[in-house]
C-alpha cells in the first residue's frame, strides 16, 4: 500500500514526533498501532474510556497524512442505506416516467411480446446503475481516489446487524451491492480504518478478529502534563503540574464519571481565562463543574476538596 506522505509512517519514532508536531501526544503503543495498521493493512479498533483521544487519533492521522477523514457516526438503527449506499429514488421514478413515454419509440418495429422484451433488454439496464447510486461514507471511503482515513465512530452504539455488515469491508476492503456487484478499493490506496468503541457492549469476536486492538487508558501524570502543554501552551508550568496532579487524584476516587483528558484541557483553558496562577480551594470549587459532570460527584469531591488541593499544591 502506498499513499502520499508515506514517509511519515516510516517507523514508530517518526510517527510519534509527527503526531507531536500536530499537538497530539501519544505513547509508543498508540504509535505502534498506527504503524502496524498501515503496514498490515488492517483496521484498528480503539477502546478506552471516553475523552482519551480515540476520535482525535483518527483525525490527527488524517491531518498528518494530508488525507480526507471520512466519518461515520454510529447509532442505534444505523443501516446500510445510511452507511453504504442508497438509491436515488426520485431520479429512478423520473426515469421510469421518461422510459414509459419513450417506450413506443424503443419498441418500434418489434413483433410480438418476445421481441419487445428482447429489445427492452438491449436497451440496457441502467435503472440500477451507478448513476442512480448515492454513496454513503463506507462506499465513499472505498472509492476515494487518493485513499483516505475512515473513522467509524462509536461502533458499540450500532446494532449487531450493522457489525456484520462491516465485516466484508474490514477484512477485504470491498462492499457488495446486489444490483451492481462488488466494489473494491484500489489495492494501493486502501483506506486507513479506525473504529472507536466506548465499551457500552461487547463487540463481536468476528469484528475483533479482523481488527488490531488498541486500548487507550487514562494517561499517567507525565504524559498528561505533556498533553496539556501541547494543547494549552499558555498555562504556566507550575499551574499545569498542579492541575494534572489534582486530576490524577480525582481519577483514583470513586466517582460516577472520572474526568478525562478533554476535561483536563477544558479546565486548563478555564483557569487561563480566570487568570489564575495557582490552584486554591475556592478556585477549584468554583470551576469544579468543568471537570465533573454529575452533581453527586461534585458533592463528593467538595467534601474532600481542601485535602486534595493541598496535596496537589505540595506536588510542585
Amino acid at each position, binding site marked *: 500500500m502506498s499513499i502520499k506522505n508515506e514517509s511519515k509512517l516510516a517507523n514508530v519514532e517518526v510517527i510519534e514526533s509527527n503526531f507531536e508536531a500536530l499537538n497530539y501526544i501519544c505513547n509508543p*503503543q498508540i504509535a*505502534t498501532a498506527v504503524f502496524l495498521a498501515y*503496514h498490515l493493512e488492517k483496521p484498528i*479498533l480503539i477502546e478506552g474510556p471516553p475523552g482519551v483521544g480515540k476520535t482525535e487519533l483518527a483525525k490527527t492521522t488524517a491531518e498528518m497524512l494530508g488525507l480526507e477523514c471520512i466519518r461515520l457516526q454510529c447509532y442505534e438503527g444505523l443501516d446500510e*442505506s445510511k452507511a453504504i449506499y442508497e*438509491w436515488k*429514488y426520485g431520479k*429512478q421514478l423520473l426515469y421510469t416516467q421518461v422510459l414509459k413515454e419513450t417506450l413506443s419509440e424503443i419498441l418500434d418495429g418489434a413483433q410480438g411480446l418476445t421481441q419487445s422484451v428482447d429489445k427492452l433488454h438491449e436497451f440496457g439496464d441502467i435503472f440500477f446503475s451507478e448513476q442512480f447510486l448515492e454513496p454513503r461514507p463506507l462506499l465513499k471511503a472505498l472509492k476515494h481516489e487518493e485513499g483516505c482515513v475512515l473513522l467509524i465512530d462509536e461502533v458499540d452504539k450500532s446494532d449487531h446487524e450493522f457489525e456484520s455488515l462491516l465485516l466484508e469491508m474490514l477484512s477485504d476492503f470491498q462492499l457488495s451491492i446486489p444490483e451492481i456487484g462488488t466494489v473494491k478499493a484500489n489495492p494501493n490506496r486502501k483506506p486507513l480504518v479506525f473504529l472507536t468503541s466506548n465499551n457500552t457492549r461487547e463487540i463481536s469476536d468476528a469484528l475483533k478478529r479482523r481488527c*488490531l*486492538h488498541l486500548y487507550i487508558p487514562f494517561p499517567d501524570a507525565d504524559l498528561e502534563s505533556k498533553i496539556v502543554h501541547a494543547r494549552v501552551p499558555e498555562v504556566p508550568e507550575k499551574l499545569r503540574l498542579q492541575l494534572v496532579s489534582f486530576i490524577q487524584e480525582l481519577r483514583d476516587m470513586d466517582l460516577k464519571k472520572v474526568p478525562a483528558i478533554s476535561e483536563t484541557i477544558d479546565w486548563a483553558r478555564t483557569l487561563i481565562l480566570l487568570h489564575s496562577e495557582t490552584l486554591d480551594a475556592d478556585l477549584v470549587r468554583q470551576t469544579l463543574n468543568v471537570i465533573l459532570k454529575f452533581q453527586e460527584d461534585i458533592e463528593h469531591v467538595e467534601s474532600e476538596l481542601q485535602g486534595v488541593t493541598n496535596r496537589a499544591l505540595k506536588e510542585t
Partner: protein
Amino acid sequence: MIDRTVVDFVKVLRTAELAVSPAETLDAMRAMNIVGYEDRQFLKNSLSIVLSKTPDEKEAFETCFESFFSFDKFSPAEEHQKTDEQQGHPENDDEFDPASKQEEGGGKSGGQGMGQGGGSAEEASDDEGLEPTSKLGKLLLARDTNAIMVAMVEAGREVHVNKIVVFTQKGLYTRKIMDAMGLPELQDEIGTLGNEGGNARTNLAGKLKKARDRLRDKVRDYVEKQFFLHADESGKQLREELLKKVKLSNLEKRNFKDVQEIVFKMAKKLIAVHSKRRKQFRRGHLDIRKTLRHNMQYDGMFFDLHWKSKKIDRPKVMCICDVSGSVSNYSRFLLMFLYSLAEVLPKARSFAFSSDLGEVTRLFAQSDLEEAMAKTMRDYGNGSTDYGQMLLDFKNNCMDDVDKKTTIIILGDARNNYGDPQSGIVKEMYDKAKRVIWLNPEPKMSWTVGDAEMDKYAPCCHQTEVCNSLMHLERVVSNLLRSST
C-alpha cells in the same frame, strides 16, 4: 523456527484464556516480519495489539509474554570456577529474577567474560590437552550459554514438554529433556574418564559432573516454568470439563465455588450468543426502499407497504423448583443459571416448593445466591413433596399471569408420595403457556417407578428432559433462549 515459536506462544495464550484465532496467529507472524526482533518492547506492543482484544486480555498477554520470552542465561562456565556447590545456588536464584531478563544480552556477555577470565586462568593448566568427546560435554564446556539454551528448548520441543499436565510429571520431563540433549553419552564419558584414572582425566570428569548437575537444575527449572505456562490452566480446564459432566447431586460442597464460576461462564456465553438474536419489533418508519422495490412491479403504485420493523420479544419464564432434599441441588443450579441470565431473561419469575408453593423471585434478585438459597431452603424445603398442592397453589395465585409468551419450567422428580397428582392443572398450563418444560433429574427409566407420576405429567408437557448435570442445564437454557426469540 520463529514460526514455531509464535505458534507455541499462541498456545500459551490460549491456555491463559485468550481467544486467539489462526487468522490472528498469521497476523502476528506478519507483524513480526515488519517489526523485527531487535526491540523487545516494540515487539511486545505490536503483538499485544494484534493478539489481545480486551483490556483483560491485554493484562493476561503481558504476563504470558514476560514469562514466555524470558530465557535464563545458562552459564556452566560460572559454575565451573566455583568449587563450592552451595555458593552456586543463590547465584542461580538471582538469574531467575524476571526483572533481570531485560538486560539478558548485557548480563550474559558480562558473565561469560568473567567466567572465561577467572575460571580458565585458574584451571587452564589442568585442562590442557583434554577435551570432552561427547556432544553434550563439548557443549557444556564451550561456555556458550545461548547454544545450551537453544539446545534445551529444542530438546523440550522434541519431547513435547508443553503437553505437561500435572505437577508430578516434572521429573519425567526433566529426564526426557536431559536424555534428548545427549545425557547418556555424557554419562558414559564421565564413567570412562573416571575409570581410566589420571589427574587430568579425573579433573575433567569432575568438571563434567558438576556441569551436568547444574544443567539438570536448569532443565528442572525450565520444565517447572513450562508447567506453569501450559499446565496450570489446562489442568483447570480439565477440572471444569469434569465438573460440567458430573451429576449435580454428587457435587461436594467444596466444589460449589468452582461450579458457580462455571455457571457464570456458561451464562456469559449464552448471553453473548442470544443477545445478538434478540430482535426488536416496532411498527415504525416506512421502509421506502423496500416499498419502492416491491411496488415497482405494480408500476410504482404504492399499495404494498413495507415497514422498518423492530421486534421486542423477550421470553417470560416461570420456573417452579422442587427444593426438597433430593432435588435441591439441581434447583440451586437452575436458579443460578436463570439469575446469571438476567441480561437476556429479564422477566424470569421463580417459585420454590416442597409442598406449598412460594415465589422467590425477589429474594433471588436482591440477595446473593448462597443466602437466597439458604433462605429458600429454610422457608420451603424439608417438607414431604406434594406436587398436587403445589399445582393447586400455582393455579390459585399465578395462573392468570400465564400467557402465550410464557415458558414454564418445572424442575422436580415428580415423586408425589402417592398423593393426588392434579395433572389437570398441568394440562391447563399446557393450553395457556407457550411451552411447558419438565426437567427431571432422575434417569428416564425410573420416571414411572414407585411414587413417581411422570407418566401422568409428561403428556401435558411440551418437552420433558433428563437434567442432572451442568451440561444438561446449559442445553435446556440455551434451547429456551433459542425458541423464545
